[in-house]
């Protein structure tokens, strides 16, 4: 580690401030509305349940928040008919 690195390492506060500002701006925007991911999860579940019977655990909804764009990842596992009794039991 060079001498310069030692001094560079010291100023972590500006990084903390910036991270907080970005994070809190996002969290404040979303505070008034209920959790988007759980709403989506419930509604997707309801749509699927109309046609196929699946267990809650077979539906994964996650949001990866990027700076300019976010990715919504939906992973639905539909058990084969023959496997259903097993899956339901598990």
């Amino acid at each position: 580690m060079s001498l310069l690195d030692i001094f560079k390492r010291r100023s972590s506060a500006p990084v903390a401030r910036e991270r907080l500002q970005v994070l809190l701006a996002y969290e404040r925007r979303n505070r008034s509305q209920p959790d988007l991911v759980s709403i989506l999860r419930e509604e997707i579940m309801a749509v699927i349940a109309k046609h196929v019977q699946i267990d809650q655990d077979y539906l994964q909804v996650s949001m990866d928040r990027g700076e300019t764009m976010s990715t919504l990842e939906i992973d639905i596992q539909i058990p084969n008919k023959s496997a259903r009794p097993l899956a339901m039991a598990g």
Partner: protein
Amino acid sequence: MGKVVVVTSGKGGVGKTTSTAALGAAVAKTGKKVALVDFDVGLRNLDLIMGAERRVVFDLVNVIQGSAKLSQALIRDKRVETLFLLPASQTRDKDALTEEGVGEVIDKLRSVFDYVFCDSPAGIERGAQLAMRFADEAVIVTNPEVSSVRDSDRIIGLLDARTLRAEQGEQIAKHVLVTRYDAARASRGEMLSIDDVLEILSTPLLGIIPESQDVLRASNLGSPVTLSEPLNAAAKAYLDAARRLEGEDLPVVVPFERKGFLDRLLGRRAA
């Protein structure tokens, strides 16, 4: 009618209980009647910090459930005669506190005391929400550190949404109390500065409590630092904060660490 002040933070371990004891004792020393209410059901500690742990007979839950009178549960401080403590219970039943019951107790306290300080449990669950529910003012205890500031922001959101005052369309007065502030580290850019914290939380400042060994010593001895060592820097900061809470217009001085030779050489700005 007394004023109800919740001392809250979201994050645990930032100094809620210590600050409740120090601020409450500071206000009581001026002759005001002060009640400190511990809302941390199951994990009470305000009795220990106040040095009253061996005098607890009845608690908040007993009063709410009607098995004790409020006057029986209140413990008078041995040092300041206008200072009282209402301890939390050690029960593990999370639903021991009801909103109605808490409301009745707070109403009674409000009619007798000038100030009622509610020491909130950590978190944002039921206990924390009940502690803030009937408050007129809030002291948000914050460490100059990312997770504490984030949790404080969350708590400020709750104060503006879930308190009775907020629901009735009234304002709840909010103040940030920065604790464990290390001027040397802030001036070296290792710790969020006061300006950073205030800018992010956009809430007025009640005071800055410097990191101090004496606060720990006061806890060890079971005496609020404002009573045991009133001349200590942390105690002075609490005493000033208490005066501001009472409405005095007292400027806040940011603890300043003189810049070292290297800092000068590198042109670092002090906080």
